[in-house]
């Protein structure tokens, strides 16, 4: 004990006598320990928040999907890439088996997919109004006629602009002829005489020239909406209502709705005001300036939506707001949209108060019906109508584009898009075939009578035709008409019965993910369910792997700093040993064993390391606490996702502190091995030669 005391004293004294060197080494150790403590604490917190955020939004703790899937499941995966995750062989059996496992709270059926919706252009809308109005009273279509001519004028200008860039003069000349015709008085005199002929010309020749119709890519999770809302606690309706029980339809993500469905001007305006309110200035921000320019250039999209009563009203409002600006409505609008830091708030309010009610702020509104199109695996187009019941978001992830990229759909609509027939469609198909007088239809009927069930029928039809009947031309035509007559409600018992691609498994205790995963894997083998399991991190797609990237960056930083520490500690200890050779020689001469010298050298580093490590760990804990009370703001979308919300509130545990001190201790000891060997190699004879 006293021997240790004196050795420690020697080590301490030696430390003090090399204080400059030891201060430098100590600072590196403090910094390294702090980095480990803060880094691992933040990483743990990120993982925890991310897990909480993702699992309670859409993935659940585990996901199961077909073991024959071509691609990995990626619920929040990259947009636009269609992945093939196969289908669950027998969902009711999978769900029943997994639900019976201990610790499983719920199993939610799902299907991931992407559909396209062709938005209507403004011209389509005006033409539709024109048609409806002319059917009621062809003489009272002046407002609509004017709107058509306004659009034609705009197209005329676009045609001029395009001429400057394009060499395809022939096409531009053809288009110009059509536009000029629509602009001419003669055309509208003709309209008064025979609206239907002119409407046909507008529909078939003029309308295709308009380019402002918008494609909407709708990435969705099809599920049992009621079940989903119950199981995922972060899910919340923002506008409208949830999809009612047994009804078809979609819920659009609020983020998606704001970013892709909202009209461009409104979107730009929102984006600018958001940045300005976060203390950016337009004057100093080139990105915001270009947004302002884009907004002003899009003034036309407002003008074409104004009718002859709305224009003067808006003119009067502008007169009040900006009395100094004279000119046409277009000039005033462009000037209005050219916002700067001094007037942005005022104009933003004006926009939503005066202009927004006159235009369509969203391409499709809550309550509207959209037509979704998707392609089956073999490339056939399917379409389904879907009502937009409302918008939703995931609490805490409101600001995340990644979390906001998925929409919710009922499974029955999904099945239409996926290309599976409902019993009614089967019946109708049979009817059509009968009417078409196809010979083999009778044979199919016979099979149907024999086997009964719809799934069997489907398989047998395919077998008899030697082709997949679903994808035959007859069927395509049939389904095209069916889409228009699809039912808007369905019996809820149908939900689990048809195609389900994947399922979320929700656990009672989130800490038992690995255990339950193994249990499901074992169950799969035993019951031959044909499934594979992914945890939330894998299932969330690329973004789930971000945490690995962050870990990698952190660990690389830790490795670098500790390599530097290792080299520096090693170097300074070798130097210190060299200086102490006479002292070491003396200790050896008067009877100190090599082991004593080894202990002495290691002790010096260890003492330094414990002091620096404790300071570093405490400083790290302090920093984490500070971060925990302030919160680390998520600077971008991916961060929001990783943090499971707009801010991360990191916490540290004992393990973070232990890790911090343990790593620095190991590094110190490793870096002292060489100097310690040098020290033990000192011969006692040097004591005889030494100068004090």
């Amino acid at each position, binding site marked *: 004990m*006293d*021997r240790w005391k*004196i050795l420690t*004293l*020697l080590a301490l*004294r*030696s430390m*003090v*006598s090399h204080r400059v060197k030891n201060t430098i080494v100590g600072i590196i150790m403090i910094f390294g320990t702090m980095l480990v403590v803060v880094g691992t604490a933040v990483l743990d917190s990120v993982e925890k928040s991310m897990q909480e955020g993702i699992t309670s939004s859409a993935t659940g703790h585990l996901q199961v999907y077909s073991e024959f899937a071509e691609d990995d499941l990626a619920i929040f995966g990259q947009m636009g890439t269609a992945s093939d995750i196969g289908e669950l062989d027998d969902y009711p059996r999978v769900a029943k088996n997994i639900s019976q496992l201990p610790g499983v709270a719920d199993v939610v059926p799902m299907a991931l997919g992407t559909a396209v919706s062709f938005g209507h252009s403004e011209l389509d809308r005006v033409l539709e109004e024109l048609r409806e109005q002319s059917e009621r009273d062809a003489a009272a279509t002046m407002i609509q006629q004017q709107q058509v001519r306004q659009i034609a004028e705009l197209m005329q200008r676009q045609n001029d602009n395009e001429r400057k860039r394009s060499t395809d003069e022939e096409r531009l000349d053809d288009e110009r002829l059509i536009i000029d015709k629509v602009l001419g008085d003669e055309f509208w005199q003709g309209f008064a005489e025979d609206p239907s002929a002119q409407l046909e010309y507008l529909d078939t020749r003029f309308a295709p020239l308009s380019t402002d119709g918008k494609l909407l890519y709708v990435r969705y999770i099809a599920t049992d909406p009621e079940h989903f809302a119950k199981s995922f606690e972060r899910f919340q309706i923002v506008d409208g209502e949830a999809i009612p029980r047994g009804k078809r339809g979609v819920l659009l993500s609020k983020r998606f709705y704001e970013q892709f469905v909202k009209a461009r001007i409104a979107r730009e305006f929102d984006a600018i005001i958001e940045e300005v309110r976060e203390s950016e200035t337009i004057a100093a921000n080139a990105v915001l300036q270009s947004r302002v320019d884009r907004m002003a250039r899009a003034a036309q999209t407002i003008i074409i939506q104004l009718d002859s009563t709305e224009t003067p009203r808006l003119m009067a409002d502008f007169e009040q707001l900006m009395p100094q600006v004279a000119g046409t409505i277009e000039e005033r609008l462009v000037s209005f949209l050219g916002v700067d830091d001094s007037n942005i708030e005022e104009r933003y309010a004006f926009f939503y108060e005066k202009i927004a009610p006159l235009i369509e702020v969203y391409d499709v509104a809550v309550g509207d019906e959209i037509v979704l199109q998707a392609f089956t695996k073999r490339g056939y187009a399917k379409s389904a109508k879907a009502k937009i019941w409302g918008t939703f978001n995931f609490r805490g992830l409101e600001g995340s584009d990644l979390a906001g990229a998925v929409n919710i759909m009922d499974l029955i609509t999904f099945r239409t898009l996926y290309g599976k027939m409902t019993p009614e469609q089967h019946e109708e198909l049979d009817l059509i075939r009968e009417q078409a007088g196809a010979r083999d239809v009778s044979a199919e009927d016979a099979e149907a009578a024999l086997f009964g069930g719809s799934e069997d029928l489907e398989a047998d039809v395919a077998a008899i035709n030697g082709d997949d009947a679903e994808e035959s031309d007859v069927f395509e035509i049939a389904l095209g008409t069916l889409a228009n007559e699809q039912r808007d409600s369905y019996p809820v018992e149908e939900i689990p019965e048809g195609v389900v691609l994947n399922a979320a498994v929700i656990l009672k205790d989130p800490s038992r993910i690995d255990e339950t995963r193994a249990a499901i894997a074992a169950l799969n083998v035993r019951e031959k369910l044909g499934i594979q399991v992914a945890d939330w991190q894998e299932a969330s797609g690329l973004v789930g792997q971000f945490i690995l990237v962050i870990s990698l960056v952190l660990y690389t930083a830790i490795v670098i700093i500790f390599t530097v520490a290792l080299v520096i500690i090693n170097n300074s200890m070798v130097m210190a040993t060299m200086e102490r050779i*006479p*002292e070491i020689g*003396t*200790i*050896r*001469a*008067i*009877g*100190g*064993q*090599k082991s*004593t010298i080894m202990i002495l050298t290691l002790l010096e580093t260890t003492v330094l390391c414990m002091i620096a490590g404790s300071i570093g760990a405490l400083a790290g804990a302090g920093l984490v606490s500070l971060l925990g009370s302030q919160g680390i703001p998520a600077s971008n979308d991916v961060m929001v996702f990783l943090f499971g919300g707009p801010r991360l509130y990191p916490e540290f545990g004992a393990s973070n502190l232990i890790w911090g001190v343990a790593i620095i201790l190991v590094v110190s000891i490793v870096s002292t091995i060489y100097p310690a060997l040098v020290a033990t190699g000192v*011969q*006692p*004879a040097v*004591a*005889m030669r*030494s*100068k*004090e």
Partner: protein
Amino acid sequence: MSTIVEMQGVRKDYPLGKTVVHALRQVDLEIEAGEFTAIAGPSGSGKTTVLNLIGCIDVPSDGVVRVAGHETAKLKDRALTQLRLHTLGFIFQNFNLIGVLNLYQNVEFPLLLQGGLGKAERRQRVLEMVDKVGLTDQLKQRPTELSGGQRQRVAIARALVTRPKIVLADEPTANLDSKTGYSIIELMKEINHQDNTTFIFSTHDQKVMEHADRVIELIDGMTVAAEQAESASA
């Protein structure tokens, strides 16, 4: 009286670059327990090498060195260290105190290396030794706060605190003024008389040699008797 140190036909060579330095060529000597022996000779005659061999700091290239009955060439480093710790005490020309420890701690240090003694017993031994060398008032001083003579007294106390059979002193007075030097030799002599501890010290100071019971002279790495025999045969 019994022989405590014995050297027979001892040769010691050191490699120096590509050549070999013959530090000792032929050394034969015997020292009895309790003797106060000086090893004399000019610089480079091999005094320090002889002390290194007796002090188990080094082993001979040839011949036999026997210290307190142990043939040193047959011992491993660990055993040699044990022999140094328990049987030998060292007094160096440059005092070689541990700078970061105070007087008391310096004297106590070999006892701590030995282990085995309780704190109180250790304290008693240390204080006894410090009293013997007359430095009781300076217990808390660091070596740098002491004069050369005081430092050498501390070194003597450190060498003797373990009650060794043999104390080796390598030119103990070389770095001291003559008056202090003689007082150190007198102190050593006094302890030699009191405790019957064997003292072997090297010196080239004639007046210091006069204090010795016996002087062993070295010339060119050989004891004088051996040198005479060699010259006679030549």
